[in-house]
């Protein structure tokens, strides 16, 4: 049975443990700008929104890439980046409907969550359980989409305000 990552904005305290953990496991250092999960904050209302690859079925990112640097695993939906082909043009980041992609500050290769190959490191660090790695059922998939819609609405309102 496969799993699904539930990402709940309401439980998120904005601590950024997930982003720090992600940069540690992927880059061997601590830097929220080099993590595959981003925390967008509106300090005034103490609101935080998590942004990361949703392994979406549309995956416009792969199509947008002029170099064919992104490949998608049909089973898991996980996107893999071929750093040798990638030119850092940022086309994938622009089209991602979930604002999940950021380019590496030095190499400019896109940072895309790969669910750590099935054992998301960030989840262990999210004590308030705003990130949950749970068995995939129809119900859970529905919940995931609902939580995502709420996050996207909040994202929009934060970006509009700024």
């Amino acid at each position: 049975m496969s799993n699904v990552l539930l990402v709940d904005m309401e439980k998120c305290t904005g601590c950024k443990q997930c982003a720090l953990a992600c940069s540690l496991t992927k880059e061997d250092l601590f830097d929220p700008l080099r993590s595959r999960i981003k925390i967008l904050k509106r300090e005034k209302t103490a609101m935080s929104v998590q942004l990361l690859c949703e392994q979406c079925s549309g995956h416009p990112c792969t199509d947008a890439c002029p170099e064919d640097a992104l490949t998608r695993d049909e089973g898991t939906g996980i996107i893999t980046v071929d750093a040798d082909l990638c030119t850092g043009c940022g086309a994938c980041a622009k089209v991602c409907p979930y604002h999940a992609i950021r380019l590496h500050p030095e190499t400019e290769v896109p940072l895309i969550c790969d669910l750590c190959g099935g054992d998301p490191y960030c989840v262990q660090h999210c004590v308030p359980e705003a990130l949950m790695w749970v068995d995939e059922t129809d119900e859970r998939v529905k919940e995931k989409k609902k939580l995502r819609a709420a996050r996207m609405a909040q994202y929009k309102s934060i970006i509009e305000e700024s």
Partner: protein
Amino acid sequence: MYAHQGSILHVDLTEDKIWKEPLPEEWRKLYVGSRGINARLLWDYCKDPDITWDDPRNVIIYAPGAVTGTTAPASGRTSVTTVGCTTGLYLKSNMGGHWGAELKFAGYDHIVVHGEAERPSYIEINDDHVDIHEDTDLWGKDVLETDTYLKKKHGYDSKGLYIGPAGEKLVRGASIMGSCYHAAGRGGGAAVMGVKNLKAISVKGTKPIRVKDPKRFAEVAKEMRELLIEDSGAQGLHEHGTAGSMAGVNELHALPGKNWQTGHTENVYPITGQAVTEQGYLKRRVACFGCTIGCHRYSEIDEGPHAGIASGGPEYETLGALGNGPGLVDTEAVLILNEICNRLGLDTITAGTVVQWAIESYERGVLTKEDTDGLELGWGKLEETKEAIIKMAERDGSLGNLMGDGLKIATEQVGQESYKWAIMNSKGLEQSNVETRSAKAYALAFAVNPRGNDHLMTETFAEFGASPEAVEVIEKITGDKKYATPHSTEKRAEIVRWHEDCYEITEALGFCVFTSTAAFGVNPDNMARLYEAATGIEMDEETLMRTGRRVVTLEKAFNVTRGATRKHDDLPYRLMHEGAASGPLKGETNNPEELAKMLDRYYTLHEWDLKTSWPYRSTYEKLQLDDVADYLERFGRLPEE
């Protein structure tokens, strides 16, 4: 450099000069970071007692912790150090939020601000690019307006540290605010910024933080995280915030009310953390940078005449000082006052303690209607309390000026023995909401606290023995579980001294003190292992605790330069001479004899002189503070051994 970024940023507002210095390797061993290195910097720049809080030579130093910016749980805190304006003595105030981590990502472990700008200014930091901007438009803006203004200029993702109108007007209870709602509130650091014409520091950073041994570091961080997940104290802090314990404290008859005239309040529920949560005021649980507990709140009033009032908090101290204290046992009343203080940049503890003193003074006829600008102050009067606090923040009228100066100056000005009901000790800081008459380690800790009598230089919560972990801590210190009782005066000196060291290293690394002295997941042993994995500097529990002792002694020495003696280590007159109103310890005081005994033991343990309370030369030398001893000798401030 590992863990630290290796750089100290200096900004001189008088000279319009900016420079950087490397972080000395020696200091990383002797003082670790944040509060510790800040204390060293303050000593180096301001030991001359002629440097008062408002002298341009006074510096204000900001520093995240040695491991801030990493997955070490709850390690994102920042210490602010300066010559305090409330006491004129050493001041360290610590705040949460996300500003300190951002500073670290910009590449700095400390910022030292020197001098005084001619006109209102702010500092902008964007990695290596640092600027002083003169900006008179900023002056007069409240904290949220300042945030909006600066984020528009420097980006949505910039992080700000601000003072509000209270800091501009040099109100002694003014508070430095970070990430909008987090405060380095105590002691008037904001007035130091105000006198420097420094409104804000806006920061943006993109530099990663590396640790020496990432694998080992992650293991120790995981151990800490898991201990905190299991800890009942940490769970409670997440669930209902710092005010989750309000009802329990009330049950102990230890909840100060009406200017410490009562210790128990009927129907206390409206001012508990539970009420904020359950009545729907709580909108979000919020964490400081890297914090797995998330005790902070964001709350809002949805309906009624006050709909739309929203802010960070309220915290235990605010519900105490602005709720139970002035007799406002009403959730919305506290939310309203909390919002005003946060926006105007006023410390809620000082605001509450000062307003309670004013109410009692008015009740006694010591303050007249003329003194209060016509306000009929009284217990349980929201409108009057609100107006008094706004006046205080803006130094408006005679009441505003009196309150704005804080209790130390106000009691001198008013006279008529009004110090007898002013809840501060000889150092002059308004006391936080702890009933020291029934908690004896707290009493001692408050008396010896170098910045004045509150719980935020040393927290001896373990003496209550409220959890198995707390009892274990007491057993570790004293050798016997039986000392886990706050009513005993025995072994209190041992308990206080251990907690001083532990509290200091907790802050030096950047941890929230809740992780080590209110909840129990972070401790000297795992902090030492973490620091070693992070920096590659060899470290064990004993050596790390010694760095804590070194800093505590250096902070003490700083006060010695300002002439502080044993006389300054006392408690508020009321608590020393008037008995607790009710409860199991009805009639109990912090009488001078009892305190004297604890002080004797405490100074003896520290190897400080009993008469003056000053450390001996040999004490300094044992802690590698020889230069400090040399300096004090020139002033005749070394006691004879």
